[in-house]
């Protein structure tokens, strides 16, 4: 827990680019996920190993949820949304390891993820509907509301970012304060609560991304 939540600890530089601790944590999580997927699907077969079955259960569960939200063939959207969900769960829960701060507790990681969601919403919307029909949905239900529609596009991306950042960062603060006040063992129930909060936030982020994409491709209202 550093003093200022808006600036991250710089570990080293590559050329002029400072590499901060959240970035290194993100790389470690990415490496871990790639390694697990590679181990599980190295020899994928119809009679799966235990790890392959576990991975298939996870992907299938996420696909069911996304299909319930988007209400059409979900496989176009599963690679993006399931990756977001799995990455967020691992990143948020990584806080329980000693000396690891979740990269989502610093503003840069949620900002990057929200930017990905923002761009992919328009990408899927234009791909599904075509450029003009997609642009025309900003004038629904009335032309007068076009500025408000564009404004809500920006604010919902902003709140997507700030919600994740605020929850993860404030939980770090709560833990630091409880450690400061009460010492050993007392923070453990709070850390268990932190696991729950992390998973719920990952779920909310993914569900909201799916709802936004569903609204862009024209199957749900948002």
């Amino acid at each position, binding site marked *: 827990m550093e003093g*200022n*939540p*808006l600036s991250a600890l710089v570990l080293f530089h590559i050329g002029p680019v400072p590499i901060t601790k959240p970035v290194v944590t993100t790389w470690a999580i990415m490496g871990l996920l790639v390694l697990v997927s590679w181990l599980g699907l190295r020899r994928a077969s119809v009679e799966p190993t235990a790890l392959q079955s576990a991975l298939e259960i996870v992907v299938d569960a996420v696909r069911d*949820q996304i299909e*319930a*939200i988007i209400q059409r063939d979900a496989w176009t959207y599963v690679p993006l949304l399931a990756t977001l969900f799995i990455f967020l769960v691992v990143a948020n829960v990584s806080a329980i390891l000693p000396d690891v701060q979740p990269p989502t507790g610093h503003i840069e990681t949620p900002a990057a993820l929200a930017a990905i969601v923002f761009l992919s919403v328009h990408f899927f919307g234009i791909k599904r509907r075509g450029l003009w029909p997609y642009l025309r949905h900003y004038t629904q239900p009335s032309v007068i509301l076009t500025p408000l529609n564009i404004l809500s596009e920006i604010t919902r991306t902003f*709140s997507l970012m*700030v*919600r994740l950042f*605020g*929850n993860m960062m*404030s939980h770090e603060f709560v833990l630091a304060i409880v450690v400061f006040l009460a010492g050993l063992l007392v923070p453990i129930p709070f850390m268990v609560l932190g696991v729950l909060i992390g998973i*719920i936030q990952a*779920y*909310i982020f993914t*569900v*909201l991304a799916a*709802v936004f994409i569903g609204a862009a491709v024209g199957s749900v209202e948002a």
Partner: protein
Amino acid sequence: MTPQIMSILGAVIAVSFGAIGPALAEGRAVAAAMDAIARQPESAGTLSRTLFVGLAMIETMAIYCLVIALLVLFANPFIG
């Protein structure tokens, strides 16, 4: 009163009063969802998904207050 004390007071007031409205609203939303699930347990899946999305929307208001408090404390343009 120094600017530091004023910003700390500002952050405290922003978070404490900003938490009241969303807390009441989330309580009402969860109570309504519980009521609906008790009446129609078979629609619990759809209800809880909608509830989560709605709660996230309500919670945004409280998080805006948190952001303002953080800006006032750590990125205040009026303090050096």
